[in-house]
């Protein structure tokens, strides 16, 4: 019992992201409306972003801005005092890129709507099959 509790406390964050990711994946697979699929894709991306950021966390550490002052010569920096900056860098670019991909996805959805007058997947497929 103690062991399982320790496992849950140490790793519950991953399970939250997995739940979120599966919600997004289910939206992409099961929803019929294209915009709902795009929303699912965004939830999926958010789960991955949260996952990366949580990898960078260190207990008892602060944000990765090195303490400094102008008149004191800087001492050696202990890496354990600052959280890992690398996942933050990667996700910083990923967030903006995900906004850009969202824009392209919506543009494609608008084009589809202009051609088929609907965003429901089954109706579009029916129109394609019987021209």
């Amino acid at each position, binding site marked *: 019992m103690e062991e399982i509790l320790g496992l849950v406390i140490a790793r519950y964050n991953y399970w939250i992201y997995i739940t979120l990711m599966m919600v997004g994946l289910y939206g992409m697979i099961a929803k019929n409306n294209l915009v709902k699929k795009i929303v699912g894709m965004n939830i999926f991306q958010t789960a991955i972003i949260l996952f990366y950021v949580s990898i960078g966390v260190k207990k008892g550490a602060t944000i990765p801005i*090195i303490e400094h002052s102008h008149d004191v010569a800087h001492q050696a920096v202990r*890496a354990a005092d600052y959280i890992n900056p690398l996942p933050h860098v990667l996700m910083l670019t990923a967030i903006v890129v995900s906004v850009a991909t969202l824009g392209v996805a919506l543009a494609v959805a*608008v084009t589809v709507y202009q051609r088929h007058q609907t965003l429901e997947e089954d109706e579009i497929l029916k129109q394609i099959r019987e021209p």
Partner: protein
Amino acid sequence: MKALGLIIVALVGAILVYATIDFPPFGDPESPASLHVSPRYLEKTLEETAVPNAVTSVLADYRSFDTMFETTVIFCAGVACFLLLRVPRRRPPAPRQFRHRLTGLTFRIKDGGEFVLPVREFEPVDSIWTPYDLIIETICRYLIPFIQIFGLYVIAHGHYSPGGGFQGGVILGASIILLSVSHNLRTALKRMGEKTSALFSPLGVLIYTGTGVLCLVLGYNFLDYQALAALLPGGPIMARSHGIFLVEVGVGMAVMGTMVWIFKNLASRGRYDEGL
């Protein structure tokens, strides 16, 4: 399809949960991700680049090649939206609805009708969006300059506090989008036209790659900002700091231009006449 999706999702979720047993615990300072290259960045960033914010120095110096192509991806997304949606402008339709500025009354001009009243007391209104809210328009008009100043601050102060080109660029782009949402697309286009926003995003990418090529011309590696010490005061370490700033400005311009460009194309379905 729904049942199949549920089964797939449950299966993938179960496999992922099973995989987490091998993962390092939350907040573990000894996790593999924090042991190899990131301590090097944290320990050397102040010494080598004079930038205390490790995120900025990793983003724009140690891993600047990565960031350069991320900027290019954003630019490509903007171009893709443009090519997908933009329709060639026919004759711009004369605005058919006008609102009297003082009373808020809206007039509709029939086809072939001529507008003879003094025009400066009236403003053109979208045919699909006639409501009008004085409070929202006024508050946004006063708020937007402060949002833009804050965006510039976030870009310029990214070396010493959380911030940088991506964040500041998004804030700047959001200020223009707010103008468009609170007024209408026509007002936003008056402030920042289609050509301006479409020019900003390649210009930002050009500033980024141009900084890299400049380093190449000065006899160093691509994007090795030490080379800029020949042009800027402060020695090779400060040159890296200045190089990061140049690159961040490029990123900010590219992000701002692309956000506004994508929004305009989406909001008006590529017609640039009416929209939010």
